[in-house]
């Protein structure tokens, strides 16, 4: 049985006062190729177990793996986007181990010769500052099969009687991206880790090389963290040797990355401050309880006996093709944001709100569909952000398209509906009642600007509010607002407010009516 007793932790402030954290992040990303890395099996998520398996990915004798050209190009593009050097020559290696999640008894990976190395990713933090995360390498490998542990109370390995393995995932192209030790993060280490994974996800999404869905496991993060004593003021922190690190696995959401690192820092600090040592080990993150627990101890287990993969020939990327791929890289997300911010004419703070609301792409698409920058931004960051928050979904997952938002704004601009009605139309669209014009028609939400109907409503309002009417007659034009409100209520919001105002003034203060219509 695993120990589930909570380990003692320290207050975060106490941790950062005494220690300097050093981060290391390993991100595995599944590529979205049609076939596996070394064979023609398909890669469809959720298919019937062991239905996407062949002699190559089963490791049957005599089977010959051949590299997927798109897998290779995706790896190069990822390396380029991470500002890496692309290897002039590299090869694959066998990583040998005895777990049954690879039927071959090894995982095909890269060891001493990764396809890409020595890069960095600039990460934007919540306060708008940028932190540069150094990237050690990005290498090609293949995913492992999926194990189901049977007999244990929790479905996990501990207490399981046996395991059931599905090899559909075995052989799916995987790129492992490893940072160098990230120093200088200080108390912001958890935030920086989260921002890095988030920026990496945006970058990979922009490259269209992966679905980058953390909840489906197509983007996975292992978080290494260690603590070293904080240098005395005036002394060089980088001269202090690194502490012993732990590696936390099973971190499957951006929020978990931040929480897991924060937790590990408070746990390691308690050990160090109470005179114990940090054990170098693999730990597992538990989303529900917010703690990590000890897994296999690394010191006893890791000898993968890497050796060059004899069945796959070396890769020598054509420099001309690499330059072609570099030229075709999409604009980096950070640069793109700066450009859009300038185009939209908004402040840093406003842009940050847009980014934090994950509304950049949605606003951009809404503008493409015909809305102005100001109106597109207003809808997504205000009304729709509120709707998303209420329903507990991501903005992009609301059942409304940028084109529909643009169409809604076009109806407002044409005077067909006003802002208040527009919100009702929005609700209709979100409820699946169709496009904005369909909702307007079905719900009868058109603004009434017909003089006859409005005139009758205005007469009723004047009759019901004689004192207000008297004030207006006496020259207090501002009091007309109260009558406009009364008419709007009468018309259930469907009146053209400007028109109502001008009708009121025409009746009570004819001299003021001009120019207010």
């Amino acid at each position, binding site marked *: 049985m695993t120990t589930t007793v909570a380990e003692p932790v320290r207050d975060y402030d106490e941790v950062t006062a005494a220690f300097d954290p050093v981060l290391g992040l390993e991100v595995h990303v599944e590529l979205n*190729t049609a076939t596996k890395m070394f064979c023609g099996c398909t890669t469809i998520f959720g298919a019937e177990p*062991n239905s996407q398996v062949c002699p190559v990915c089963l490791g*049957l004798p005599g089977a010959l793996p051949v590299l997927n050209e798109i897998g290779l190009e995706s790896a190069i593009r990822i390396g380029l986007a991470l500002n890496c050097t692309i290897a002039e020559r590299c090869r694959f290696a066998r990583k040998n181990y005895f777990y049954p999640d690879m039927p071959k008894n090894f995982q095909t990976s890269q060891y001493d010769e990764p396809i890409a190395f020595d890069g960095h990713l600039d990460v934007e933090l919540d306060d708008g500052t940028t932190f540069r995360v150094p990237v050690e390498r990005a290498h090609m490998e293949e995913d492992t099969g999926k194990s189901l*542990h049977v007999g244990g109370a929790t479905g996990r390995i501990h207490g399981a009687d046996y395991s059931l393995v599905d090899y559909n995932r075995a052989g799916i192209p995987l790129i492992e991206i490893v940072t160098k030790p990230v120093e200088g993060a200080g108390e912001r280490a958890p935030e920086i880790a989260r921002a890095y994974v988030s920026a990496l996800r945006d970058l990979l999404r922009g490259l269209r090389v992966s679905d980058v869905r953390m909840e489906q496991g197509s983007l996975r993060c292992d978080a290494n963290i260690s603590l070293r004593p904080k240098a005395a003021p005036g002394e060089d922190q980088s001269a202090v040797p690194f502490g012993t690190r732990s590696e936390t696995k099973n971190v499957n959401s951006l929020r978990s990355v931040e929480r897991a690192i924060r937790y590990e820092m408070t746990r390691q600090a308690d050990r160090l401050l109470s005179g114990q040592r940090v054990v170098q080990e693999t730990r597992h993150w538990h989303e529900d309880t917010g703690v990590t627990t000890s897994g296999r101890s690394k010191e006893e287990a890791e000898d993968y006996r890497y050796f060059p993969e004899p069945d*796959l020939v070396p890769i*020598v990327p054509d420099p001309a093709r690499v330059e072609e791929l570099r030229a075709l890289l999409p604009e980096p997300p950070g640069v793109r944001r700066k450009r859009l911010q300038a185009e939209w004419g908004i402040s840093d703070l406003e842009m940050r709100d847009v980014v934090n609301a994950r509304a950049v792409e949605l606003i951009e698409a809404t503008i493409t569909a015909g809305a102005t920058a100001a109106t597109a931004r207003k809808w997504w960051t205000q009304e729709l952000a509120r709707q998303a928050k209420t329903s507990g979904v991501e903005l992009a997952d609301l059942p409304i398209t940028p084109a529909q938002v643009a169409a809604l704004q076009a109806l407002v601009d044409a005077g067909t509906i006003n802002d208040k009605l527009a919100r009702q139309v929005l609700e209709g669209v979100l409820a699946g009642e169709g496009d904005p014009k369909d909702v307007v028609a079905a719900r009868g939400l058109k603004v009434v600007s017909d003089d006859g109907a409005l005139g009758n409503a205005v007469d009723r309002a004047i009759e019901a509010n004689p004192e207000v009417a008297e004030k207006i007659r006496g020259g207090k034009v501002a009091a007309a607002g109260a009558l406009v409100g009364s008419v709007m209520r009468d018309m259930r919001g469907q009146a053209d407010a400007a028109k109502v105002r001008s009708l009121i003034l025409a009746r009570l203060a004819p001299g003021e009516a001009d120019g207010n219509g």
Partner: protein
Amino acid sequence: MSAISREEVAHLASLSRIDLGPAELDTLAGQLDVILGAVAAVQQVAGDDVPATSHPMPLTNVTRSDTPRPSLGSAAVLAGAPEAEQGRFRVPRILEED
């Protein structure tokens, strides 16, 4: 001293799920010992100035297009499994979490 013991061969056989009788173990242990001895002789010859050869053929950049090819089908795949359950390979309890 032999390069590989009879016990080590028996252990490897059991890891490889190859059922070997006592006579077969005797024979194979002897044969493997000869092979390992030959490898050891090569290792002595290869100096530090000779890089390890991982790929004897002068081939590079062999790739295939990202085009699906038929898989085996789960029935055929599982036919090779010692035990299967729920369409999956049933294996002894392992030490590592997923």
